[in-house]
């Protein structure tokens, strides 16, 4: 089931699929770089990546929900316009219609196909039975627990017998135990061939989930999104989370996810003419708060300065999604190195972890100005003004040249967080004015 690249023709194939958004000034921001991707029959494919990296957008382009900016999606070799012919999506938020009963929710896609009432009733009941919702047909979604709701979501997706089943972080809104149960049930349906679905494409940010389910794991890099690595998984089912092969694979995916991708990040240009705005090189600020990073450094210092990221995440019961941005922040500021999936604290990081609040701020300030182009620019631009004050719009316009509107808002928000913490500048949320903090 796993060695697919030579196997039968793909069901869905993306060729040079791209997504970009136009900017007011006529330029375009690319969120997904030209991507080739094929979905073969008989496979569960997991698309793995940090949140906001474009996984969901890619899924929506493959299903035809969102139009591609360039490239095309092929369905059995034929180019597709609009939605793909026979696919389903299981949504993260379940996306059930709260005013319809379980039965009506599951019947709705059949109704859309113009199926007569008797037959759609029969089919819906059969699939409701298969996902273990027997007895809940006349319940409304709000009476159900999260797990039950997602079972309805799965039933609704399966009732149209899709050739490819798409799942957009289907278990991330559920608690750990429920999610595990549902994964097991999905695998059972799939492995026992209880459903005619020929391929499953699941988007997730949970590495273990990907390794438990998938025959193939595609790791997505970001800014713009691109395929960063492609793993074939050949561990037989049922997969043992404590097994050597399992842990090895999880570790190597961790390594890939933490491997720096941009070579130029490490050596940012040093000199700027005061006030001259050179757009920052594309260093995306990870969306974290300084407090979280301080906590991570303290824990690392406590554990002797070196820890396996996978184990660390486990101990903190965090998912990769939550831990990685914090690690990225510490790396960016020079407090941390990542080697072979291990996080290693630097001397500066040690100093930071041991310092009191005021000293931490000083260390953070120096590190941020030295290593984060955006913060440095903001400081210099503020210094260049006689009243030491600038409107946030000024910086947002600058960021808009490189990021989507949403992303530049988040970038600026993070930069302001950091700058305030480091006492580089003050920010008045009501007027949107940034003022240089006088020493």
């Amino acid at each position, binding site marked *: 089931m796993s060695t697919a690249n030579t196997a039968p023709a793909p069901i869905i194939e993306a060729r040079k699929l791209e997504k970009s958004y136009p900017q007011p000034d006529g330029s375009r921001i690319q969120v997904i770089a030209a991507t080739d991707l094929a979905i073969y029959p008989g496979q569960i494919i997991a698309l793995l990546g940090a949140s906001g990296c474009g996984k969901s957008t890619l899924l929506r382009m493959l299903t035809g929900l969102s139009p591609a900016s360039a490239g095309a999606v092929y369905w059995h070799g034929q180019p597709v316009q609009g939605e793909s012919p026979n*696919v389903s999506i299981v949504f993260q938020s379940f996306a059930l219609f709260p005013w319809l009963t379980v039965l009506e929710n599951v019947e709705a896609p059949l109704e859309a*196909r113009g199926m007569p009432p008797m037959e759609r009733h029969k089919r819906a009941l059969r699939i409701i039975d298969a996902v273990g919702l027997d007895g809940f047909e006349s319940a409304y979604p709000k009476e159900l627990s999260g797990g039950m709701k997602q079972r309805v979501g799965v039933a609704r997706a399966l009732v149209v017998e899709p050739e490819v089943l798409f799942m957009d972080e289907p278990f991330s809104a559920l608690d750990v135990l429920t999610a595990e149960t549902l994964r097991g049930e999905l695998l059972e349906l799939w492995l026992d061939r209880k459903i005619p679905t020929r391929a499953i494409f699941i988007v997730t940010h949970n590495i273990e989930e990907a390794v438990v389910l998938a025959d193939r794991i595609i790791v997505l890099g970001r800014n713009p999104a691109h395929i960063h690595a492609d793993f074939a998984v050949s561990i037989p089912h049922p997969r043992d989370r404590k097994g050597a092969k399992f842990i090895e694979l999880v570790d190597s995916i961790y390594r890939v996810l933490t491997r720096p991708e941009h070579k130029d990040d490490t050596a940012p240009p040093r000199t700027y003419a005061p006030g001259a705005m050179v757009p920052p090189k594309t260093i995306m600020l990870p969306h974290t708060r300084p407090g979280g990073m301080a906590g991570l450094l303290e824990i690392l210092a406590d554990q002797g300065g070196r820890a396996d990221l996978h184990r660390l995440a486990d101990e903190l019961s965090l998912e990769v999604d939550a831990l990685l941005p914090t690690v990225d922040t510490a790396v960016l500021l020079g407090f941390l190195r990542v080697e072979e999936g291990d996080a290693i604290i630097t001397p500066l990081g040690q100093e930071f972890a041991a310092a009191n609040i005021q000293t931490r701020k000083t260390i953070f300030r120096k590190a941020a100005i030295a290593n984060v182009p955006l913060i440095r620019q903001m400081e210099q631009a503020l210094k260049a003004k006689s009243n030491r004050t600038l409107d946030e719009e000024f910086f947002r316009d600058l960021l808009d040249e490189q990021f989507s509107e949403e992303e530049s808002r988040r970038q600026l928000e993070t930069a302001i967080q950091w700058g305030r913490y480091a006492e580089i500048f003050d920010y008045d949320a009501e007027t949107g004015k940034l003022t240089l903090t006088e020493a």
Partner: protein
Amino acid sequence: MTALAPTASQTTPLPPTAQRPAGSRWSWAFLIDIAVFLFVFAAIYGVYAIGRSWLGPVQPQAHISQNPRILPLYALYSLVRIGVAYALSLVFALAYGYLAASSRRAEVIMVPLLDILQSIPVLSFLPGVMLAMVALFPHSQFGLELGSILLIFTGQVWNIAFSFYSSLKTVPRELHEAAVIYRFSRWQRFAELDLPFSTIGLVWNSMMSVAGGWFFLMACEMFVLGSRDFRLPGLGSFLQTAASDGNTYAILWGVAAMVAVIVLMDQLIWRPIIVWADKFKFEQVESAAAAQTTLLNLIGRASFVIRLYRLLLKPVFNWLAVTFAVGARRAAATFSAPKQNRARRWLVYVLAVGVLFGLGVAVFHAVRELSGLHREDYIELLQSAALTFLRVNTALILGALWTVPVGVYIGSNPRFARIAQPLAQIASSIPATALFPIILLFLLRLRGGLEISAMLLMLLGTQWYILFNVIAGAMAIPTDLKEAAYIFHFSSWDRWRHLILPGIFPYLVTGMVTASGGAWNASIVAEYFHFQGRIVSAPGLGSTISSASDSGRFDVLLASTLIMATIVVLINRLLWRRLYRLASTRFKLEA
């Protein structure tokens, strides 16, 4: 104004899961069936009475009886008028909102247009509507009835349309995507996603609209237009005639009848609908408490109703679903994009040119009409606008002054709220205009009596919006904040300044916006009134509009309407919208 903000009563808890008729309750079901059949007989007689009246020869000045015995028939006439007007409003509002939400190009024009139309008082539509209807049906009472219904319609339709539009714009993304990926036809998307998602907003705005219909009923059933005097038998004209004659006895009877009808409607129609609508609440978790209404349970149990639904409606829905689904698939199969697009684009162009031409003609005539007015006329109009402005805002401030403390008290004492809220709801459903003659009886004797009465009427008509919103706001203040205020020994001034006022601010703004618009509209009935055989009027923009309509001065009517619409829209843009923004940024309570 805007879509109805969450009022306290909107937090009505959930009904239990659909009640299925229990087998042991067959005797109940049987009784209900009999009641329903009796109701059907009564309805048939009602239709007959209405038909006889509507299709009869035209009588612009029907004799309006002052005998209380006639009140049930008059109540029926008025109810049917308001009901038909509401049905028209709903259909129009759905179409308008759907169009505005689905076409970006149409949206640009249609949404601001709603804003303007909402700010035009009912009477300004009167000459156009009435003359057109009478010209269309010169020999039948139908024209007059239709005119009156359309007048009521103009007072009901806009906020429903706005509510539907804004619901459509806020359909959650993943639900919308589910509808697309499962290839819902247009019909299915409307019936299973758009309409259910909008239901709660539609219900609350419908209640508001129908209340508005009662408020302006007197103006819509009896009016003078130049030399022509129009009277249609109904509760509104009964009250108006009684007031003109100074017949206190008839006034009291009329008010009692109107209040009875409204309270009955509230209990028999709106309460069950609200409870039923709760099923459309967009929430993932069931609320703790469950509200019930006996009537809804009874209807749900009546086997007759269920049979009717299964026999008649379900097949129709199924047929619609299948037809649209098949149609959509066929359209997709024979889809030839460029051709259809071109045809469509041409249609849009032709329509746009037509609309622009119509607009041009209208503006030309309007300007010609307005050119007859002199500078002094405009100065006078602006002066009366200033007077009405003062009156409206005094009423608003007075309203806020009493409703804020009372609302906060009710909202923060749940036990008291359980008693006070239903009472306030009944009080609010009584149209202030019906009470107006009684108020005048007492106040006209005083110096500046009409001045006071006018403000009182605006106050009576609009204070409820503020009160209900303040109650909701006070209920929404988180308990931990209240506890913090208690722990830190806030003085009561500090508590108001740091906790209560900021907490209720967004709600207060919502209530005030609605109240402000309502007060401007109410000025046409508050400042000008036929009472005891004479016209009592206070100088102001409202009375200018009313008297211009009475005397057939179309130029004055047009100018004063334009001024009022401009003022209301300007106040909305310059004041309320800013406060809204402030409310949604700085005063938003979030985790």
